[in-house]
């Protein structure tokens, strides 16, 4: 694991290249197999599968965001689910406003749950979310600013290691409790759902689903390349230096707090974008997304895929989520056993994840 920074740079990251090619192929092939191949053909990809794949891609982007801060910067964030969920809520609020008077209560100004709660006016923080550009801005800004403020407070006072992990977990836990409250104005327990359309496109139509799938793929590719650029830059090497010897890095003159702050905030923004793409595809966002378990699951995707490789994070996210979908379908009880076992086995026997295994195989051949 320790050598990948350098080899990654010299060999221009073969794993990453393969990943990008595969992603491009999938992105081209899946829409064709869905739209052009007849339904009864064995090659046909159902819209359900397209949406499922799209969801996995948003998870992959989230995993890349976590890998950036954990793998390269050494910040084990147990709260990245919060940034994901906040991005999702920002998108969800836009989608709620798009429902207009098509809700159960038919109120053109207020989402159903507010009518249900007997509210008469839109809360101030809901204003502007009827505009897509504003919501898109919030998707980026809300997680980014929260991460920035949180990071500014923690990094400056040099909270590191497990302490930092625990307070990131507390952060997402606190947000979960807050969002469960009806008074917060985000739909409480039920969250936001029953979305109708996005930018005028019907969310249930195949074309919109394909569109969202492609958007997720592009976001993942873009996020991946941005992170790749970052970790290959001198800043990326400074990040690794901070990860391995924080105070040493300080003594050669880098503002460690600043580096952490910006990379952490950037990572939160990526997570927010992932969340925003996730919500229209699954059709709901609720406070459960803030649960500490979700956040820690992301970490496991990264650990399994292999941290500090970026493409490993993608691999881990896809594999674990496919396994989850499969197992919860076949034998629901086994999923938590499998997940728990993965945590233990990977940390004990596969500290470099699957990417590390592949690389070792590649080196041996």
């Amino acid at each position, binding site marked *: 694991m320790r050598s990948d920074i350098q080899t990654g740079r010299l060999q221009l990251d073969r794993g990453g290249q393969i990943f990008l090619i595969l992603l491009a192929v999938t992105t081209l092939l899946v829409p064709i197999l869905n739209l052009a191949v007849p339904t009864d053909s064995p090659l046909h990809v159902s819209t359900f599968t397209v949406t499922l794949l799209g969801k996995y891609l948003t998870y992959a982007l989230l995993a890349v965001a976590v890998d950036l801060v954990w793998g390269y910067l050494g910040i*084990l964030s147990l709260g990245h689910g919060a940034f994901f969920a906040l991005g999702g809520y920002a998108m969800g609020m836009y989608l709620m406003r798009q429902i207009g008077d098509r809700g159960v209560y038919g109120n053109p100004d207020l989402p159903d749950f507010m009518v249900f709660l007997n509210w008469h006016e839109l809360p101030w923080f809901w204003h502007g979310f009827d505009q897509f550009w504003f919501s898109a801005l919030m998707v980026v800004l809300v997680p980014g600013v929260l991460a920035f403020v949180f990071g500014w*407070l*923690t990094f*400056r*006072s*040099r*909270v590191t*290691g*497990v*302490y930092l*992990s*625990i*307070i990131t*977990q*507390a*952060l997402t*836990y*606190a947000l979960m*409790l*807050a969002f*469960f*409250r009806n008074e917060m104005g985000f739909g409480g327990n039920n969250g936001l759902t029953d979305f109708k359309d996005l930018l005028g496109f019907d969310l249930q139509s195949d074309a919109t689903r394909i569109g969202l799938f492609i958007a997720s793929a592009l976001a993942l590719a873009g996020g991946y390349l941005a992170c790749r650029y970052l970790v290959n830059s001198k800043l990326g090497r400074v990040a690794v230096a901070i990860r391995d010897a924080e*105070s040493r890095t300080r003594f050669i003159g880098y503002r460690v707090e600043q580096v952490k702050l910006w990379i952490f905030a950037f990572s939160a923004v990526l997570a927010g974008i992932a969340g925003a793409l996730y919500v229209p595809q699954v059709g709901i966002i609720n406070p459960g997304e803030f649960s*500490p*378990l979700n956040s*820690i699951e992301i*970490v*496991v995707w990264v*650990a399994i895929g292999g941290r500090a490789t970026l493409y490993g994070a993608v691999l881990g996210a896809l594999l674990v989520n496919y396994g989850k979908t499969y197992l919860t379908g076949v034998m629901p*009880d086994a999923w*938590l*056993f499998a*997940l*728990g*076992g*993965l*945590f*233990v086995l*990977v*940390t*004990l026997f596969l*500290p470099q994840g699957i990417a590390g295994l592949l690389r070792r195989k590649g080196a041996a051949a």
Partner: protein
Amino acid sequence: MPVRCLSRTGLRARLIAALLLIALMPGAFADPGDFQQGAALIAENRFANLEDGVALVAASGDPKARQLLLALQGSDLYLRKSDRTLVIAAKGADGYDLTDPLTGESAGTAASKRELKRIRINNRLRSQLSAAIAGLDLSHQDPAVRLSGVNEMLANLDDDGLKLLRERIQVETDTEVREAMTTAIALGDLDSADPEVRLQSLDVLQGNLHPAVRGAIRRLIETDADPEVLKSAQRVQDSIEFKLELYSLAETLFFGLSLGSVLVLAAIGLAITFGVMGVINMAHGELIMLGAYTTYLVQQLMPGHIGLALLLAIPAAFMVSGAVGILIERGVIRFLYGRPLETLLATFGISLILQQLVRTLISPQNVPVANPDWMSGSWQINSVLSLTMNRMVIIAFCLIVFSALYLVMRKTALGLQVRAVSQNRAMARAMGVRSARVDALTFGLGSGIAGVAGVALSQLTNVGPNLGQTYIIDSFMVVVFGGVGNLWGTLVAGMSLGVVNKILEPWAGAVLAKILVLVFIILFIQKRPRGLFPQKGRAAEG
């Protein structure tokens, strides 16, 4: 029927006179005929006659009068349709067991309520009944009954009742009852026309917390014209308000301490594994859960001995969780020392497995854990402050566990070795401490304590597979807030977080209070990353 033409006031006067007589010389002047006559009036089952009947029975001085009136009040008094006699019905083995209120002897049974006709009462009668019963209570031989009688009268005091009280207080021997009577009389005197009397009774009522007193004084302030009295009343009201606030503060503090005790219990095992060994054990919550489930299982093994089972569950839970803890340490954690983030992940995986194990083996639903009798009930300190037993037991239990652990760490060889290893592993090893064994035992100790905490929690909350998750973040917050590696810090942090939470709750709501506390800790850690009581010096740096 001469009784029928008795005027209401006349009857009342007679009632009072009779009660006074009974009060002074029980039984001496009782007229057995009155009881029979009254009962007969009641048996007519007409509202108009019921009143007179009740008055007569109450005044009769018959020892069975109270039972009759109570039955009437509790709607247990019936007419048997077959012979139109009065009976008291209580649900029996089959149908209803009947008692003759006139003799107190059994009157056979009734198969169903259709054989009976209930004597119905209205609201006016209801208040007459409670006054009459209260009056009878005043002369009951049990002081507790007398006290409740006085309290009953306090609620709606009239001249007759007041008169009765004045007489009764002369012969009352029990101090508590006397006090209640004094209060009641003073309360009655507030309506006196003489401002001097009102002032005097205000003095008596100073600081009295009875709800009736508060109401009476509020009314007095609204209506009284005398400036002296008003001033005094205001002062008394202030004194009462102050006392009330004081007691409500005490109650908040008590709630806070009991919540704090739960937090300390949950966190203290973590303080050992995290603080002393630097190991992040995310499965700590599940070790607590195992303790709670052990309690459930022990109770299942010995039904009928709830209390004993609970006591036995303490060592059992310690062993179970401790053993699981040692297994975790030997099987996983020992390969990960010096890699705290990996330890965190691996133990989180273990926590998922343990949760699912419980779901699969026992049940995904919550299981019922019984509370022994001595855990229920409460200690009534005064009319506004009562401390529930289970909370008191938790606080005591927490302190006992804490002291035991403290002694173990301070006074035993294991404690010394643990401290040595935590301060300087290499040096301790060089001195011949077998650090691997110490690690395993320390981890077992911390886990065992978690199990014991589980026993305590099983008495307070639902026992289910998610029990541990609820407490894990709170526990970490307590340890981090208190300063890692510091048992005192954990105690102080847990207690203060509990109290702060309960202070915030009334105006912020439970959830928001919790969020505020979390945010506070997040900010606090940023100010003092090493907690309230940090380990200082060079060793702690870096």
